[in-house]
Structures are given as C-alpha cells and as structure tokens.
C-alpha cells in the first residue's frame, strides 16, 4: 500500500498492520516461531478492518470518496468497458474536458458513456477544471444522449462531480439552462438509461446525468442537494458542523436506498474502491449487466414513461391530499 494516502479513521488499522509487520521482522531476526501469534493478530486486524469500514459515518464516507486515489471516470471506463472511443465537443462553443463521453462496448453491446472527469494530480486537475463542468460539458452530454437515442443505444453515466462550475463565464453561457436541458433530455430519452453515482453526487450538476431508468450508487458514494459544508454554513454559520449536516441530509447510499432515491447499492472492496479498482469494476459490471437486462424488454415509449413514473414518486406528500 506504500504510497497510499491514509484517512483519519484508518489509523488504528495502519497501526495494527505496522505492529504485525514489526513482529514478523522481530521473529525473523531472532529466528523465533511466532506464526500463531501473528496469525491471531492478522485475524484481529481483518476484523478491525471490517468493523471500521462497515461502520463509517456519512462524513467519513465523503472523505473516502474524495480520496485522491479513488478511480476516476476514465479509469473505471477502461476497466468496465471492452472498448471506448471518445467523442469530444458540444458543437457549439467548446470542448469541456471535465466531462468525457463516447461510445463503448459493454459485453459486446454498444453503449453511450457519459461521465464528469476529475484529474489525478494537480496538472491533470487543472486540465480537467477539477472535474467541475461548464455548460459546454452538459451540452456535450446532451448531444451524445440525443445521438444515443437516434441509434437506440443505452446511455450509461458514471457520476462523480462536486457540482457544476460556479463562475462568471459559466453563468454567461447558461449553466442553469444547460443543466435543465440535460435533465429534460436524459429525463425523456427513449433508450435505456442507467446512472451510476460513483463518488460525489453533487446537486443539479450530478442530477443532470442521473436521470436513469435505474439509478445505482457505489456503497460509499453520496448524493445531495447541497454539500455538507455549505449546509453547515447555512445552519450553524460555519463549516465545522459538516459531519452533523451530512447525517441530517441523509446522503449516504443506505439512506438513499431506504428512501427509494436509488435503486441499488453496488458494494465496494473493503476500504473503498481505490483499494482494488479492478474488483470495483467487476462489481459495477455485474450490476450494470443486470440492470441493462431488466430494461431490455421495454419499448421506446415504455422506457420514457417508466422514467417519468420513476421520478414521479418523489412528489408524494404524505399525510395530506
């Protein structure tokens, strides 16, 4: 795990692993047989891992999905799809590299893939505008959605985005209308749409790509109308209560599944996607395959209608009317 960046809640595990390592060295140097003791410690350590990683609170999970080594969209695309040809540009104003899109093969079937793209390091992050799309990014997405519809291809989105970029030029070029248009277009496509929230599901900027017939979510991902930090500022006048806000907003995959906002949780490898991206991709593949199969039987019109009905349930005003 050498260069892995360690999160706060992982420290007890790291400590214990270090002790085990030291004990192994000690046993080797002194030529002692400590395999029983080391074995017990190892079991203890595995238990600790499961305990810690399965009981993460919402705020800790946010730390986890913001982990700089969490696989980015392009890394996941590479692992999930057999092939991928990137299509660039909105055909209007620009090429937004904070939003990638193209055609890929999934189990031999062509699909349109759309995903916001974060960078891996500072250089890449500057290139990718820290994964914050401008209107061009959403308009590229709209263009590719319409293209997918023309050719009857399913649309698969991988969503990991803090939000749409808040900036002067983005406002001038219609960030709001671009997001609205993406919601509208993806919301009425006559092809199967599967949205997978893989990390940060930040407000309208995420929803614009999350109008799935099926909305899946990685175990540690979050999906929220507002960042917990901003909520903390509004509620408590400073950002020190982000942890509390995260809980109150019910943004974890488990909460969202319970509230039927999402359809399914895709489990992550122990400790998070970045501990084993390949396993992560396999878990996504399994879920994606299953969900695309569910949608296969529906006609064009049924797909659009089913999506309308899917989102209609969030209007239920309990207790009145």
């Amino acid at each position, binding site marked *: 795990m050498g260069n892995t960046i360690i999160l706060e809640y992982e420290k007890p595990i790291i400590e214990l692993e270090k002790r085990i390592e030291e004990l192994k060295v000690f046993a080797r140097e002194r030529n002692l047989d400590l395999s029983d003791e080391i074995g017990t410690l190892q079991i203890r350590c595995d238990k600790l891992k499961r305990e810690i990683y399965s009981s993460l609170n919402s705020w800790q999970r946010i730390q986890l999905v913001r982990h700089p080594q969490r696989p980015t969209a392009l890394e996941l695309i590479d692992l999930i799809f057999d092939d991928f040809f990137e299509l660039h540009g909105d055909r209007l104003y620009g090429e937004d590299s904070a939003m990638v899109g193209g055609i890929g093969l999934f189990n031999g079937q062509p699909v349109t893939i759309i995903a916001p793209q974060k960078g891996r390091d500072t250089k890449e992050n500057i290139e990718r505008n820290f994964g914050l799309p401008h209107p061009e990014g959403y308009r590229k997405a709209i263009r590719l959605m319409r293209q997918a519809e023309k050719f009857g291809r399913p649309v698969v989105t991988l969503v990991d985005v803090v939000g*749409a*970029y*808040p*900036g*002067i030029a*983005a*406002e*001038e*070029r*219609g*960030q*709001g*209308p671009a*997001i*609205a*248009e993406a*919601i*509208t277009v993806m*919301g*009425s496509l006559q092809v199967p749409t599967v949205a997978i929230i893989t990390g940060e599901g930040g*407000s*309208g900027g995420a*929803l614009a790509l999350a*109008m799935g017939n099926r909305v899946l979510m990685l175990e540690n991902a979050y*999906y*929220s*109308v*507002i960042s917990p930090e901003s*909520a903390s500022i*509004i509620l408590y006048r400073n950002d020190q209560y982000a942890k509390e806000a995260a809980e*109150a*907003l*019910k*943004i974890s995959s488990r909460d*969202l599944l319970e*509230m039927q*906002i999402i359809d399914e949780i895709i489990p992550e490898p122990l400790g998070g996607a970045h501990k084993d991206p390949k396993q992560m991709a396999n878990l996504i593949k399994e879920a994606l395959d299953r969900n695309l199969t569910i949608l296969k039987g529906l006609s064009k019109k049924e797909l659009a209608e089913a*999506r*309308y009905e899917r*989102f*209609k349930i*969030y*209007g*239920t*005003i*309990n*207790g*009145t*009317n």
Partner: protein
Amino acid sequence: MFKDLFRSKPKYVTVRPHRQPETSEKKEIPGGLWIKCDKCNNILYKKDLEKSFSVCPKCGFHFVITAKKRIQQLTDEGSFKEMDADLKTSDPLEFPQYLEKLEKYQEETEMKDAIVTGKATIAGRKTVIAVIDFNFMRGSMNTVVGEKIVRAFEVAIKEKLPVVVISGGGGGARMQEGVFSLMQMARTCQAADKHSKAGLLYIAVLTQATMGGVYASFASQADIILAEPGALIGFAGPRIIEQTMKQSLPAGFQTAEYVHNHGHIDHIVARPFLKETLTHLIDWHAR
C-alpha cells in the same frame, strides 16, 4: 397596437441591479402607510405603490410582491380557482427544526408552502398559472413546490391549456428536504417537457430572484422566457462565484438585463406591461 407598447421604452427598463432582495415587510416605515424604496431610498406612499403595480414611481424598482397580489395583477377578476391549496410537506428527512420553521412561515404568510397554483382566465383565455412566493422561505423549491408545478402541467396537458409560471425564489432547492428537493428539478423538467411535447405553450416569467435549482430546471425550459427588469437570475449565487473566482463580478452581473444580453431571455417586460404581454402571447398561441 401591442407593438406600440414597446416602442416608447418604459423607463422601468433602465432599472439597475439590486443584489440582496428582502421581504417587503422589512422596509416598512412604522405606522404602516409608508415604505422606503430598496433602491432609491425614497419614501413612498403605500397606496401609490399599489397603484403602480408595486413598481417604484421614482426609480422603477420592482418590489417583491406576494403570489396573491401577482395573481390579482395578471388574471381576470374573479376567474382564479386555486388548485391543491392544502398540500403540505411530509418533512421527508425529519430535518431538525424544519417543522417549526414551516409553521412560522405558514402563520406569517397564510400559505401552506411557497407556491400558489390554479386555473384562471387571462383576457378571457383559460390558463394554468403557478406563482412562487418569495416571502415563504425565499420561494425555495421543496416537494410541495415541485408537486404543485407537476400537477399544474399535468392538468394543462389534460385540458390542453397554456401554462404561465412566475418564478421568484431566492435559494433554489430547499435544503431541509435534501435530495427530495433535488428530485423536484427532475420532475418539473419532465412535466414541462411532456407539456411541450403535447404542443402546448409554456411561458416563464422570471422575477426577483430566480436562482439555483429553480433556474436550472423548469424556469429555464419555457417556450418563451420573460423577465422583470432588474431581477436577479442565475445558477450559482454571486457570493459563491466571488469566492471561487477570487475576483469581483462585472457590473450588473446576473441581472435580467445581463442575462438577456447573453441570450437566455426572450424579452424583458416591466410589470405594468406584463398582463398585456401575456394576453397577446396566449392569444397568438390559442388554437
């Protein structure tokens, strides 16, 4: 002739931006007969203001008005029939202190939530109208606002009617209903789209202020987008942008005039001309 209305530019069109809208009560002068203009600071006689559509006669500033007053100004007298007046939120997240907050607003405004919808006639033409009220939690969008907008479009589809939305919300999506507020962006866009695909007319009137989740959903998806002079319109709030950009904003940024010049608004219409404008547009789209 209608076109002559716009020939002699009304002075209201020159209204300057006004960043921080407040609920109108705040500016009332004790005694209750007088009010201070948010923009030019002139003291105005409230009855005069009423007569001028709550537009400051001195500087053209458009005061925030209630949904009720808006409906009075725009629809034929006695024609308005409210729909879904009793809808209340179920507080889906059981968010701390939310219900208490709601109760306070419900008492103050005599509304159940931040929107009024209904059917009315405008110059004799049947129309579905939805008006967001800024005074109720800054007109933010929650499940009730979303649901009532969706129902408004669905009624309009069923009865083949045009929809007029007056959108004026400060905060966009309402935090206290979390992801359920977010889902209203989805639903309202889908409903507006369904209405559009039925070949029906949707006019949005963007008023002070139309931001965030409201602007990034149904409010920007209309066939014709009108805006009141000086209204603040955008996706991200000016403060967030200033923090992100670490530079000051251009003059008039996110005002109706600025957004219009960047291609996102069909026409800026001062409030006194709004009913006549809607009348003509609805008339021209009647079948």
